[in-house]
């Protein structure tokens, strides 16, 4: 599904290299986790994949289902099935959460040549999904992320993901800032979406989330490249020992 090949990325504005030959492949139906020290380039990777401005790809590339991701506009990537749950969800004053969701859902349907949802269908759907994530009617009406608590913002990202039903979900530290119960809700939401033709790339610092969302593969990212790849036990090792040994092992 997602193939990243020898990706080199620098900042557009300054001479700073962030990703240094990162390669990674997530087959359909799998959950991969990425762990790595602060500043190692995890969020940068997720932004570059989803098309944020400000980065320059100097070498390598990335494909989704064989299509060149980096050649597409952000909205084309979304329509192709890519979704990023932001580490820091953005506030949009004055725009109702519901309006935002509906505009997004229908924009993607339109781009894919599907019929738009009627307001009745949409409401029914959003109510059901919001309920699963314990997002109340008030939060749906309020402006997007404005005044939401940290945990509410993260749940709201997962609501968007559930509504948009992307095929490739990237979650950037969705677990950070969640209380124990919210973590379970989010994990349940993700697990409900798991299927043979949907994949996940879960960026996290903690083993805890991975107890709920069993990853198939765990990658360790350091200094802009994957330095080690293993099974779920790798996350346990990081949790217990930190990155010290893994980093020195990789030199």
């Amino acid at each position: 599904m997602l193939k990243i090949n020898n990706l080199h990325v620098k900042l557009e504005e300054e001479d700073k290299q962030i990703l240094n030959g990162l390669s990674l492949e997530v087959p359909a139906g799998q959950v991969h986790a990425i762990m790595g020290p602060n500043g190692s380039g995890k969020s940068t990777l997720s932004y570059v994949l989803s098309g944020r401005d400000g980065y320059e790809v100097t070498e390598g590339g990335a494909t989704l289902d064989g299509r060149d991701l980096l050649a597409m506009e952000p909205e084309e990537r979304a329509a192709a099935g890519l979704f990023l749950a932001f580490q820091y969800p953005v506030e949009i004053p004055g725009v109702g959460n519901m309006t935002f969701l509906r505009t997004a859902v229908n924009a993607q349907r339109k781009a894919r040549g599907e019929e738009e949802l009627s307001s009745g269908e949409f409401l029914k759907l959003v109510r059901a999904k919001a309920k699963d994530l314990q997002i109340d009617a008030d939060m749906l009406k309020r402006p997007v992320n404005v005044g939401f608590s940290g945990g509410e913002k993260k749940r709201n990202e997962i609501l968007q993901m559930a509504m948009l039903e992307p095929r490739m979900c990237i979650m950037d530290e969705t677990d950070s800032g969640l209380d124990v119960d919210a973590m379970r809700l989010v994990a349940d939401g993700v697990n409900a979406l798991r299927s043979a033709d949907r994949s996940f790339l879960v960026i996290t610092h903690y083993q805890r989330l991975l107890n709920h969302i069993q990853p198939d593969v765990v990658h360790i990212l350091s200094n802009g490249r994957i330095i080690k790849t293993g099974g779920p036990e790798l996350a346990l090792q990081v949790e217990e020992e930190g990155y010290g040994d893994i980093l020195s092992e990789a030199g």
Partner: protein
Amino acid sequence: MTEITDLDVRDGVDRETVETVQNMGSYKYGWNTEIEMDFAPKGVNEDIVRLISQKNEEPEWMTEWRLDAYRRWVTMSEPRWAMLNYPDIDYQDQYYYARPKSMEVKPKSLDEVDPTLLATYEKLGIPLKEQMILAGVEGAEETPAEARKVAVDAVFDSVSLGTTFKDELAKAGVIFCPISEAIREHPELVKKYLGSVVPQSDNFFATLNSAVFSDGSFVYVPPGVRCPMELSTYFRINAENTGQFERTLIIADKGSYVSYLEGCTAPKRDTHQLHAAVVEIVILEDAEVKYSTVQNWYPGDEEGKGGIYNFVTKRADCREARAKVMWTQVETGSAITWKYPSCILRGEEAQGEFYSIAIANNFQQADTGTKMIHLGRNTRSRIVSKGISAGQAQNTYRGLVSMHPRATNSRNYTQCDSLLIGDKCGAHTVPYIEVKNTSSRVEHEATTSKVDDDQLFYCRSRGMDEEEAVALVVNGFCREVLQALPMEFAMEAQSLVAISLEGSVG
């Protein structure tokens, strides 16, 4: 249940915006209606003023009133203090009177109106001949309508075409008719109130209007009457090189209420066209008037060619205690906008509100704002202005808040936000504040920001294209003002916001 409906509508509104953006060209109302016109000769002089008066079959006193204004106007010069840059206007190179030939003999009812004209309004989406009336005729009006009724007066170039729902309004005692008709049929009201809010010699443009205005709308709501439907006027300039000078007079008698909507469009022309309107509102004790405008005159093309020069004087006089006025405007059109809807808060505890969205794109220039003149005790005013600049446009908020010595214990709150799209446009805020007593309070808040890249990226990462994303973010920025509009207008305004920002990104 109410909550569902509410959400439903809001969502529908936004979907509409998005669809409109995708389906429309850059200026949807830019077509021209092929109609034979009857023009007065170019230029303005006493003969032209007399001719206009005569064509409207006006009484002698009205002709004299106009001539008096004309004589003052020739001694005045055009104001140039606004932050607007445009070549000198040749006032003798304009037509001051144009009317469709088919209107020469005044139609007695809408059925006698040239169908091409009606088709024009239909294209504009105006319910001029409401579906039922179209189908049925007389009995139709008694059948309950599903949709909310809006009475419409439509003004095409210089002439009013006719007013709908006249009978139903008459039953409530409300007079809603072309001002030309009011001058003939309600001279006592016109004599008493015309020029009492915006005097003949108020300013250069208002004085010109007083001399040459050809038509416009007249409203009188009697004491204690709540007008049973929204009143609305649509103005359209069609003829080339023709100035439009309409005049609106609204009188809300004691304890009455009326909501009035005004919409404007014009075809695409390479040359600039002049529009100088005057709106006067008189509000008596405990009465309330809401006046909403969606101004969508042709703004000129991407290179700044053509477009309407819009010089408008609008003023409401809250003449008695607890009179209340609310101006809401969405200004998206015109090459030049010079407009300051004002409130004179004369009566004790009178209230004035001004909600404004002004969008300037490409080479548009807008200098707009309000004046809150507090004369009475315990008067209140509130100003919410949202200015959006894109392309190479310049957008200025100019506002005056004045607390007179007798206006003790009065309050004003002003909030003035500017949003910039791109880096070639400009936003300016020019507040004038005069406080001449010690017990009144004036608060002013202003912000200027660029449209946020992170917000746009967030929207696009969810599948919206760049224009949809900008429209959504800007509509969010304007929300407070959009909510002040009647629902039907709010939908139209949201789409207009999207349309007028087309091409402002990427």
